[in-house]
């Protein structure tokens, strides 16, 4: 006769055996309960404050695709590239990425991103939905790799109070006039000009002097010219005299914004998002005291965010569906009005209308982002963009901070850039 204890034991073993067999079957079949659902992941760039709305994207997406699970990850700008690259190496790259500046070029050039050209070709109305000029900034070797998520480009902010004190009434019209304005506003703790300089944001200073970075075929450096030497000499002298704030050459974002918001800088070349930081930190900023203009010559460098799909994505079509949803009219408008940005889509008209009513000064700033799009500079599709940038900027920085003669620095930069371009 079986004792109750041994009966219980045999029941436990039986259940255990059943559970183990089920697990084994699922494992062998490769379709565990959790794997029955498809999953895509989204990596965004420092927008944790937007969580509620991203949950909204996901909820909308789930309605269309109930069988798909969406995972959202967000990383700070300083951590983003490190995180993404390690995920790629680990074979777990997020399906959809929100990437800033020129980082995408390296990924695209090495086959790390999905070519979106066929997707856009299939839906011409969608192609028209995106701003063509911004769309063109994400083309590499004829292929479209990203679509706009939110856009920005550089412009010139002016401290009108300092300008009036120096007897200046209108925006500068040339490089020389801009430095002349800056010199007039420089006094004691005050400096006349400041620029953001990460990525290629400082390039309008060269573009307005007719300097090109590379030859038309993109195979050789083209910047070592008398005009470039003169430009760097002028920048170095202005920096040495305190006319250009030295923070300009640090490559940071917060510190230059802080300097301009303190009210001690006359002219500030920065991208539109800087405005919201400056206004938040500087009590002096209002429609009477802050002037907004394009840089002399109308040149500007974009610094936008695009959405793309990792080549390793198991579900690129689903990822594309998600991108379409995140950039549709409803969500583009929500994004623009919530985070004070334009989106590089047709929703921008409505976003600008919103700001004209609610925040006219912000509307003025944002309006500049859609002007002069035929004079976007600093967007050369080079796979080794980061290395070229490093090679050029390290020498420029040495020259403007007085460590090297401008002519020597540019000659050395030319040698370095050409070496990068010749690397296999």
């Amino acid at each position, binding site marked *: 006769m079986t004792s109750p204890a041994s009966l219980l034991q045999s029941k436990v073993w039986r259940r255990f055996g059943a559970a183990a067999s089920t697990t084994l079957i699922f494992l062998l079949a490769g379709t565990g309960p959790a794997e029955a659902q498809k999953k895509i992941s989204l990596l965004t760039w420092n927008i944790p404050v937007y969580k509620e709305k991203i949950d909204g994207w996901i909820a909308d997406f789930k309605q269309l695709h109930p069988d798909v699970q969406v995972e959202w990850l967000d990383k700070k700008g300083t951590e983003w590239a490190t995180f993404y*690259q390690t995920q*790629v190496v680990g074979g777990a790259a997020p399906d959809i990425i929100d990437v800033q500046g020129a980082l995408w070029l*390296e990924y695209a050039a*090495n086959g790390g991103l999905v070519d979106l050209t066929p997707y856009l070709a299939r839906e011409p109305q969608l192609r028209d939905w995106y701003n063509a000029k911004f769309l063109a900034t994400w083309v590499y070797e004829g292929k479209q790799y990203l679509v706009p998520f939110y856009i920005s480009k550089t412009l010139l902010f002016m401290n009108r109070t300092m300008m009036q004190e120096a007897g200046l009434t209108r925006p500068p019209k040339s490089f020389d006039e801009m430095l002349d304005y800056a010199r007039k506003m420089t006094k004691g*703790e005050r400096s006349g000009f400041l620029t953001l300089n990460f990525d290629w944001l400082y390039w309008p200073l060269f573009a307005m002097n007719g300097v090109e970075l590379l030859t038309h075929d993109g195979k050789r450096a083209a910047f070592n010219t008398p005009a470039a030497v003169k430009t760097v000499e002028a920048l170095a002298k202005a920096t040495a005299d305190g006319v250009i704030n030295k*923070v300009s050459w*640090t490559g940071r974002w917060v510190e230059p914004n802080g300097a301009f918001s303190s009210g001690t800088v006359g002219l500030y070349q920065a991208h539109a998002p800087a405005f919201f930081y400056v206004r938040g930190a500087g009590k002096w900023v209002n429609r009477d005291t802050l002037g907004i203009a394009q840089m002399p010559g109308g040149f500007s460098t974009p610094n936008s965010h695009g959405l793309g799909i990792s*080549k390793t994505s198991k579900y690129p079509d689903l990822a594309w569906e998600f991108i379409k949803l995140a950039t549709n009219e409803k969500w583009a408008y929500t994004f623009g009005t919530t985070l004070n940005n334009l989106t590089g889509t047709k929703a921008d008209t409505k976003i600008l209308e919103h700001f004209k009513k609610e925040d006219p000064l912000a509307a003025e700033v944002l309006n500049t982002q859609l002007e002069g799009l035929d004079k976007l500079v600093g967007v050369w599709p080079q796979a080794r963009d980061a290395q070229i940038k490093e090679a050029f900027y390290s020498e420029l*920085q040495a020259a403007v*901070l007085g460590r090297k003669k401008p002519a020597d620095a540019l000659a050395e930069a030319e040698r370095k850039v050409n070496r990068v371009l010749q690397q296999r």
Partner: protein
Amino acid sequence: MTYARRRGSGFVWLFLAPSLLVFALYRIIPLGWNAVLSVERWSPFRPASFAGLDHYEEMFFHDEVFWRSLWNTVVFMTSAPIAIALALGVALLVNAPIRGRALYRAAIFLSYPLMPVAVGIIWRWLYDEKVGLINYGLISAGLISRGIPFLESFEWAMLAVIVAAVWQILGFFMVILLAGLQSIPRELHEAAAIDGAGRAQRIGRITLPLLRPAIFLCLIIGIINSFTSFDLIYVMTRGGPNYATELLITYIYRAAFTLTRFDYAAALTVVLFVFLLALTWLANRASGGEAGAVEAAE
């Protein structure tokens, strides 16, 4: 070998096995993989191809940033002897029978448990050109008329980060040296004093020679620390301005994650490894070749 000895040896390996396994997984295998990577052309997005010694050639003959970062690393290493000298002075002070010495010891040690990132942020604020306490003090004292942009200046940036590094490690060195000081028998000092030795002579002839192991330990820790001070530099200057504070370790990071040149970063890492190995060997020689040796119990 006797059976008992073999059995004992087997036990030693058995107990060591888990640690060795972890060590192999997290140190030896990555090190090997890194060495392989250094002779390949590889990025996360494309398959590897053999590059031979191309990266090393570029590093030694064409990359001035490598040489600068190597030199900066050597300069930054001076923070170790500076910190040891200061820590010794402080240890001698707080070892003296003064009131509230426990409080002083605790206050000086406090900087050590702080995270390097926090130390970097604190010092960045202290050095700030406009609102930094250091510039405020210097201007108030009439020593300068305008704030110095310490971390943006070629002349000051390296010194500025060395000061921060010294400040952080000072408390730790003080504790080690204090323990060393307290282990010196008081009778030696008393006997020397009776023989007519002055304070300076006693420090030079008794304290310093007997503190040699503690100083040596501090030196090794300090040197290793200076090679791995990534967080502090990254937070304070990111290696700038214009590589003025770029160390080999920050350059490796820049090469890998900013320039997406993992293969080149691997070659830089091999050089750093060899450099560290050479230093360790030298240190071992300097200590009589027995550093880290443990006598097995019979």
